[in-house]
C-alpha cells in the first residue's frame, strides 16, 4: 500500500488499449486459492478486509493523508449477503481474467450490465459493483485499471496557462495549452491522467483554484480571473472523480502549484474538500495516490455567509445530520474545522457559491476572491 500505478511493461503489445502490469492478476488467483482451501477443508469460506469506515481512518504524517487503519471485517458465507459477495468476487475475478485473455477493457457501467448474466450473483446497483471493485483493489493491492476496469470519461475541465502533452487514442502525442488552445469549455480530463498519457510541459500559473460548480468556473473564466491572477481553474464537478483528484495532485506535486478549494458553503462541500485534501473514506486505500494534503479550503465558509451577508437557505435536517457526522469524522478533527462546523450548526445557514452574485457579476473576482486569497496568503 499504496498500489503503484503499473508502469508500461516491457511485454506490452501495441494492441493493449491500457497499460496493465504483467502480474496484475496474480493476486486474484491467490484469493481463489484461499477460498478453495477453505471449502476443501470443510471451513465456512470467509475473507478478511480492512473496514472502510470513518472510524477506521488513520492519519499518516509522512504522507500527510488519511489511510485505512488496522480494523478488519469478515465477509463470510455464513450469511446470505456475505456468501453472495464472495460468489460475486469470483465471478468478477473470472471476468477480469477473461478480459485479460481477450485483451479487452470494460467500463464500470458495462461491468454492472455484464453481471446480468451472473444469475443470483448479479449486482443490484452500480454502487454495489463499484464497492466490490474497491474491495478487490484493497485485497489485491492493485488499481481498478490493473483489472481492466475504468470509469466512463468524466469530463472535468481545466482552464488556465498550463501546457500539456497528451497521447491520444491513436497513440499520437498532441501538445497544447489549456488556455490558448482549447474552447470555452476548457480542456476535458480523460479518465487516465497518468504520465504515460499526460505529461506536463510548462505553466505560467501561480496556483490552482479547484471549483465545485461549473457556473462558477464559467464566471471566473469570463471575468478573466485566470489571466489576471495567473490561476489554473479546475472544475471538480461535485464530488471529484479519481482522475480529477489525481490530476490535481500531480499539478500540486510536479508543478509545485498551491491548491485552493472553492465550494458552496454547506456540509456536503466540506466533504468534497476532505476527499480532495485528506482522502475519501471509500478510497482511503488510495489516499497517498489521490489526496493533495496541502490543499486549502477557501470558502464559502460559515463566517463568509455572515461577513458578506450572503443570500442563504436554512440547514435541512439532513444537513444537520451531515454536520454532526462530520464532528465525529477524524478528518475534520482539527480545531479550525470543528469551529467552522459548529459555527454553521449554530447559525443554521448554508449558501451557494453563486450567491456572491448578489453584489454583481464582478464581485466574486474583484472583491471576494482577492480578499480571501489575501487572507490565506496565496496572493
Amino acid at each position: 500500500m499504496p498500489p503503484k500505478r503499473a508502469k508500461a511493461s516491457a511485454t506490452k503489445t501495441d494492441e493493449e488499449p491500457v497499460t496493465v502490469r504483467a502480474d496484475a492478476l496474480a493476486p486474484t488467483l491467490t484469493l481463489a486459492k484461499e477460498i478453495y482451501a477453505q471449502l476443501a477443508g470443510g471451513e465456512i469460506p470467509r475473507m478478511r478486509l480492512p473496514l472502510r469506515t470513518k472510524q477506521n481512518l488513520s492519519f499518516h504524517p509522512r504522507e500527510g493523508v488519511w489511510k485505512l487503519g488496522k480494523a478488519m471485517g469478515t465477509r463470510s458465507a455464513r450469511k446470505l449477503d456475505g456468501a453472495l459477495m464472495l460468489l460475486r468476487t469470483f465471478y468478477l475475478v473470472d471476468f477480469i481474467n477473461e478480459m485479460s485473455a481477450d485483451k479487452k477493457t470494460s467500463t464500470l457501467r458495462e461491468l454492472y450490465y455484464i453481471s446480468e448474466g451472473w444469475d443470483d450473483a448479479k449486482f443490484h446497483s452500480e454502487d454495489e459493483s463499484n464497492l466490490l471493485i474497491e474491495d478487490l483493489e484493497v485485497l489485491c493491492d492493485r488499481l481498478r485499471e490493473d483489472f481492466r476496469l475504468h470509469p466512463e470519461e468524466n469530463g472535468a475541465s481545466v482552464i488556465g496557462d498550463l501546457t500539456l502533452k497528451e497521447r491520444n487514442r491513436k497513440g499520437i502525442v498532441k501538445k497544447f495549452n489549456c488556455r490558448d488552445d482549447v474552447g470555452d469549455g476548457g480542456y476535458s480530463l480523460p479518465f487516465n491522467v497518468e504520465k504515460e498519457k499526460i505529461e506536463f510541459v510548462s505553466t505560467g500559473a501561480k496556483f490552482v483554484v479547484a471549483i465545485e460548480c461549473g457556473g462558477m468556473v464559467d464566471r471566473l473564466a469570463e471575468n478573466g480571473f485566470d489571466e489576471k491572477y495567473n490561476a489554473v481553474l479546475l472544475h471538480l464537478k461535485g464530488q471529484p472523480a479519481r482522475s480529477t483528484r489525481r490530476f490535481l495532485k500531480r499539478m500540486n506535486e510536479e508543478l509545485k502549484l498551491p491548491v485552493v478549494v472553492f465550494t458552496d458553503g454547506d456540509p456536503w462541500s466540506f466533504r468534497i474538500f476532505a476527499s480532495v485534501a485528506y482522502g475519501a473514506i471509500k478510497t482511503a486505500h488510495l489516499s497517498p495516490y489521490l489526496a493533495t494534503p496541502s490543499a486549502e479550503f477557501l470558502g464559502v465558509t460559515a463566517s463568509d455567509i455572515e461577513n458578506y451577508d450572503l443570500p442563504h437557505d436554512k440547514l435541512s435536517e439532513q444537513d444537520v445530520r451531515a454536520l454532526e457526522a462530520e464532528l465525529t469524522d477524524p478528518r475534520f478533527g482539527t480545531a479550525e474545522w470543528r469551529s467552522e462546523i459548529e459555527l454553521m450548526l449554530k447559525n443554521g445557514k448554508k449558501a451557494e457559491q453563486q450567491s456572491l452574485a448578489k453584489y454583481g457579476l464582478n464581485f466574486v473576482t474583484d472583491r471576494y476572491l482577492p480578499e480571501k486569497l489575501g487572507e490565506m496568503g496565496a496572493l
Partner: protein
Amino acid sequence: MPASLTIAQQLAAKQREISVAEFFERNRQILGFDNLQRALLTTVKEAADNVLDACEESGILPELTVEIAKEGEDRYRVSVSDNGPGILRKEIPNVFARLLYGSRFHSHRQARGQQGIGISAAVLYSNLTTNRPARITSKVEEEEVAHVLDLFLDTQKNQPRVVRDEVEIWDRPHGTRIELSLKARYVRARQSPLEYLRGTAIVNPHARIVLVEPDGTRLTFERASSEPPPPARETLPHPYGLELGELAHLLKASRRSTLTEFLTKDLQGVSLRAAKEALLGARLSGSAKPASVEGEPLEKLLTSLQSVTLIAPSADGLSPIGAMLIKRGLRNVLGELRPEFFAPPVSRPPRVRGGFPFMVEIGLVYGGGLPADQPMQILRFANRVPLLFQQGACAITNAIASMDWRRYGLDQKGGSGVPVGPALVLVHVASTKVPFTSEAKEAVAEDPELDREITLALQASARHLRTHLTRMSRRDFASEKFAIIQRILPRLAEKTSHLLGKPVPDLTPVITRIMDVVNVETSLVKEPGALRLPVEVTNYTPRPRVLELFLEIAPEMFGAAAFDPAPDGTDPALGRAWWTLPKLAPNGRTRLTVTLPKEADIEANDLDWFVAGVDEARLLGADPLPGDWEVRLPRTIVEAAEAAAADAAAGSAKEEGEVDYDAAEASEGVRDED
C-alpha cells in the same frame, strides 16, 4: 254565542294520531334511510336478513340473489329472491307493509331482526320516494302456484293496501322475491351492499349469495359448507333480564295454576328452592294464581326474584358461527387474497350479562394480499349481521384498540389504537340481546363483561399469530441458509475450482457447518383417494444424529391415519405416534409418510411434529418434545443429545466478536463520496 272552547278542548283538537309517514320521517336515521347510499344498503340488508332468518328457522340452505338495476338518476330497482319456505298469502301484506308487525319481538333467542320494522320500512321508503308499490312473489311448498302481490303501506292507518293480487306459475318449490323501486345511490365503497353481502357470506358459509350490480357485474359467494347452523332454540325468559312490564305480561298470559308453578316452569333458571325463597321475600303465597299478582306485590316479586340465587341463563338461545365455519367462511371469501395464515378461530364459552347469554367469537387472518401498510381490517358482527357503520364508536373496535398488539408482532404506535399490518380480524358477538349503542344497531355498546370476553378472545387469537410469526421468521432465517447451501456454495466451489483448474471439493462438511440444524419438512400431496403427507428429516449438522420423531394429531383423526413405516409406538387416545429414526450421517436424510382419508380437512402445517435428540436451537420445522409427554427416551438418544450440546458449546466461540464487513459498510454513510 259561539261556545268558547276550553283549553282542554283546544288541545284535544290539535291532538291526532301521528301518521306512520311522520314517524318514518322523524326516525329516518334510526331506520337507516337518512341518505341515498344508506337507503339502498338498508333495503338490501333488511331483505337479506329476513331471508337468512327464515331459512334458518326452517332448516333450508339459503340461496340469496340480490339484483340492483338502475332505473334513472338516483333511482334503482332492487330485487331480492330466495329459496326460503315462502309466506302464506294471508300473511304477505302484513309482513311486508305494516310497521311493527312481527313474530320475534317477544322471543328469547338470537335472531337478526327483531322489531318487525325493517322490511316494511323499506317498502314504505320505496312507496314514498317513487310512488310505486312493492311487488312480492311468494310460493309455499303446499301450493301449486305463487302469489304475486303489489303493496302500498297506508301511511295514515299503518295498514297494507293491496293493489294487485294474482297467482303465477313459479318454477321453484318454494321461495320469496321482493322487488322495490327506490331513490338511492349505488357505490362500491366500504359501506355498500357489496361489503354487506361479503360480510354476510363470511359468517354464513352455508348460504350461497349472488349479487348482480347495476353495471351487470355478477358476484357469487359460493356455499362453503353444506350444514346449516343449528337453529337457535327459543328459551324461557330469565329473571335477571326481565323488566316489570314484561313480567306482568307473562303472569297475565300464563296458563299455570299456581305462582310456584309459573316461576319454575315459565321462567328459566328458577329452582323450586329459589322460587320458595323469592316468594318468601315478596311475602307472596306460592299457591296464588299468577294472573292475580299486580301492583306493588308484582314489583316486590321481581326485586325478590332478582336477589335470590338462580341458575345462570342457558346459552341454548345462542347461535354461534362455530370455529370451523369461521375458518371456512373467511377462507371462502378471502381466498383470492391468499392469506398466509388463518389463526384457529376462537369461540369463548357463553357468558351472561343482565340475564342474557352472550358469547364472543374471533377469526384472525394474516398476510398474503392483505395490505401491510394499512390498519388491521376489522369485520364486526352482531348475531351474524355485519356492522358497517360507527366503527369508531363500537366496543369491539375499542377492545382491539386498547390491546398492545406489538407483543404479538403487529405494528402499533405507542401500543394502542388499531394496529397496522396485513391482518384482518373478525369479531362476532352473539346474544339474545346485544347491547347496541343506539336503536340503529350499528355499534356494540361498552360493557365490562363483554369487553373482557372480547379481549380474552383477541388475546387467544393474537397468541396464535405470534407463534406463526415466530415460525415464519425462523423459516426466513432457514430459507436464507438454504439459499446459501443450495444456490451459492456450489457455484462458489465451481468458480474457484475453474479458476485454479482443480476438481470441485465435497461440500458436505461446509454445508452442515453453515446450516447446523435438523430440518423436518412436511408437504401435502392430494391424491384421488387420500391425502398423503410425506415427511423428510434431514440432518444438516456436522455430526451423526440418532433422533426420535413424534407426531400428534387430533385423536378422532388418528384411527383413520396410516403410517409408513409403522411407528415404533402409538397412543391412539392422545393421537400420538413415534419413531426411532435410523442414524443420520451429516447431510443424511430419511423419509416417512402419513396418509389420511381425503375428507380430512387438514394442511401440511396442521400436523404437530416433535423431535428428541437435538437441542431446540438446531431444530427446524418441528418443536422439541414437550416435557409433559413423560416419554422415556432410549438411552442412545439422551446420550447423543448431551454430546451434541457439549459439542455446540465448544464450537460456537469461533467467529464471535468479528465484525461483519458488509454490515459495517452498509451502515456507513460513505455513498456520497467518490
